[in-house]
C-alpha cells in the first residue's frame, strides 16, 4: 500500500476514534468533555467521557480489529473469499455461549464465565464448521450457515427459557450486536483474551503466505499445516469469542475489511492483515457512531448498519464469483 493510502487510513482511524468520543445521545461541546477530563471533581463531561464513551470506543476498536484480522486470516487459511467469523457461525456460537453465561446466573457468580463460555461457544462452532465444511468454498459456507442457524436457534431457545422476563426482549442485542453502555469492567474482562487471540492469528502470517501456493507446496516449504489450522481456529475463537461475549454477534465487518483493502495491497495474506485490522476498526467505529447519530427513539443496533452496508457488497462478491468461476 502506498504511503499516502497508509497515512490516510491512519488519519481516518483517528477521526472515527475522536468522533466516537465526541458523539452521543447527550450533546456536549468537546471543550466540556476535555475540561471534565482534568477537573478535580466529577463533572458531567468528564463522567460521560471517561465512564461511558471511552470504554465504548476501546471496545469498538478491539472488536473491529478482531473482526478485520480474523476475516483476513480465515480467508487466507481456508483460501475462501467468503470466510469470516459471522458466515462460519463462530460469532453466533460465541453469542450463544455468552447468553448461557449471563442469563443463567453463571456470570454473577464468576464474571469470567461470560468470555470463557463465549470462547468455548466460538470454538465449538468453528470446529463443527471446519470439520463438516472441508472440501470447497461452497461446502464451507453451507456448513457455516448451518452452524449459524443452529447457534441462532439455540440462542433464541436459551433466551426463551431464561428466568428473566427481559431475556426475550434482548434477543436483538445478541443477534445484531451493540456497543451501547458497556462498562470498563466488561471491556477489560474481554481484552486479554482478545489480545491473546490476535497474537495467535498474527503468528500464522508466514504460513498463510505459503498456503497461497497450495497445501502440498506449503507443506514442502516446511509449513506445519495442522498447527496453522489450529492456531487460526483457536485465535479466532479466543478473539471473536471474547469480543462477541461483550458486543453480541456483529456481521459483515470480517468479510468487508479484507476485501476493501485487497485492491490496494494485493493478495498476499501478510500484506492484507494489518490494513484489514485498520479498516475493521474504522468500519465498526463508523457504524457505531452512526447508531448514535441516526435519530431513532431507541438506539439502533450495530448489526442493522453493518448488514445494510455489508449486504450490497456481499451481492457484488457473489456476482464476481459467478463471473470468475467456471
Amino acid at each position, binding site marked *: 500500500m502506498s504511503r499516502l493510502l497508509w497515512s490516510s487510513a491512519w488519519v481516518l482511524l483517528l477521526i472515527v476514534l475522536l468522533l466516537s468520543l465526541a458523539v452521543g*445521545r447527550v450533546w456536549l461541546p468537546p471543550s466540556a468533555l476535555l475540561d471534565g477530563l482534568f477537573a478535580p471533581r466529577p463533572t458531567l463531561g468528564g*463522567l460521560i467521557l471517561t465512564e461511558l464513551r471511552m470504554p465504548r470506543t476501546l471496545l469498538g476498536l478491539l472488536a473491529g480489529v478482531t473482526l478485520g484480522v480474523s476475516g483476513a486470516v480465515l480467508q487466507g487459511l481456508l483460501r475462501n473469499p467468503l470466510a469470516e467469523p459471522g458466515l462460519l457461525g463462530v460469532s453466533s456460537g460465541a453469542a450463544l455461549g455468552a447468553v448461557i453465561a449471563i*442469563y443463567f446466573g453463571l456470570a454473577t457468580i464468576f464474571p469470567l464465565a461470560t468470555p470463557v463460555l463465549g470462547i468455548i461457544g466460538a470454538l465449538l462452532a468453528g470446529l463443527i464448521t471446519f470439520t463438516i465444511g472441508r472440501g470447497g468454498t461452497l461446502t464451507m459456507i453451507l456448513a457455516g450457515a448451518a452452524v449459524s442457524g443452529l447457534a441462532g436457534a439455540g440462542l433464541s431457545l436459551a433466551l426463551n427459557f431464561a428466568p*428473566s422476563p427481559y431475556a426475550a426482549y*434482548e434477543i436483538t442485542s445478541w443477534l445484531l450486536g451493540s456497543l451501547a453502555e458497556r*462498562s470498563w469492567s466488561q471491556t477489560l474482562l474481554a481484552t486479554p483474551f482478545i489480545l491473546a487471540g490476535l497474537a495467535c492469528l498474527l503468528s500464522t502470517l508466514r504460513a498463510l503466505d505459503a498456503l497461497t501456493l497450495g497445501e502440498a507446496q506449503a507443506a514442502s516449504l516446511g509449513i506445519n499445516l495442522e498447527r496453522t489450522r489450529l492456531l487460526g481456529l483457536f485465535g479466532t475463537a479466543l478473539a471473536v469469542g471474547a469480543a462477541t461475549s461483550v458486543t453480541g454477534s456483529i456481521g459483515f465487518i470480517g468479510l468487508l475489511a479484507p476485501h476493501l483493502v485487497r485492491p490496494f495491497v494485493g493478495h498476499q495474506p501478510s500484506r492484507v492483515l494489518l490494513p484489514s485490522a485498520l479498516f475493521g476498526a474504522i468500519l465498526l467505529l463508523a457504524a457505531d457512531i452512526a447508531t448514535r447519530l441516526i435519530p431513532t427513539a431507541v438506539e439502533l443496533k450495530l448489526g442493522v448498519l453493518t448488514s445494510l452496508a455489508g449486504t450490497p457488497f456481499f451481492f457484488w462478491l457473489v456476482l464476481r464469483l459467478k463471473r470468475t468461476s467456471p
Partner: protein
Amino acid sequence: MLSSAAPASAPVSAATPRPAKPQRIMSMNMCNDLILLMLVPRERIASITSLAHDAAKVFMPGADEGVPINHGTAEEILLQRPDLILVSPWTMSAARRLGEQVDTPIVEVEEATDFASIRRAVRQIGAAVGEPARAEALVRRMDADLAALAARRPRKPLRVVVWSGDGSVPGRGTLTDAIITAAGGINIGARRQDGGYSSFGLEDLLAARPDAIMQGVGSYGAPSLHKANARHPVIDKLFAGRQIAYPDAGYACGLPQSAKAARDLARAFAAIPRGGPRW
C-alpha cells in the same frame, strides 16, 4: 372448591335464569385477578391467570390458595364454563369471541394507570361481581391512605427517575409515574414529551442529575443484559446512598394497595440525603 374440570355438558343457555351474583367468575388478566380476590370469596372464582400467584403472595398471602388457574386461552373458557369473564383490552380476541358464542357475559376492564383509573376499575369489577359495597370500602381505604400521604408532602420534592438499564424509563401516563407523584416526588421521565415509556440511556441519566434513582427488585431480578447495565459501575459510584429499591410487584398493577406503595416510597424519599448529586 369448584373443580376446574367441570363437566362439559353443564347446561349453559340464554334460557337459564342467571343468579344475581355470578358464582363462577373467570379472570383472564393478572391485575383483574388481584382485585377479584379482594372482592369475592374464592368459592365464587372459576379461575385466575397463572400469573396471579406470585403477585398474590405479595399482596394477600394465601388468598389465592386452591383457586384454579387459566392461561388466558380460549379453550379454557369451554373447559371451565364460567358465568362471568373479566378481560383486559389485550385479552386474545379468540377468547372473547368464544365467550360471546357460549353466551357468557364479558366485562372489559381498562388497565389502571393512575389512582382515578384504579377507583374506576375497582368499582367496575365490584359492580360486575355484585359486590359494590366491598368495592366502595376498598376505594375509601385507598383514598384515606392518599389523603394522609398528601398531608405530609415534603416542601422540596425529590427529582427521581426509574432506572432499570433497559434504555427506557416510565414517563407520563404510567402507574409508576402516578405512584411517584403521590409519594411527593417528581418523575424526570415524565418531563419528556413522548408519553408512556420513553427511551433514556446512561448519558441521559447523568445529564438529568436526578436526586435519586429507583430500581425495581423482585421477580424481574433474574440476570440479563440490562440488569448488567443497570449495575453499571458508574451507577454505584455516583448514586451511592441515592438508590431506592422498590418491589416490582407493587408497581405492576393499579390496585388499592398502590397507595401503600406510594406511602413506602415517600418513606424511602425521606431517607435520601439532601443537596443533590455531586457532579
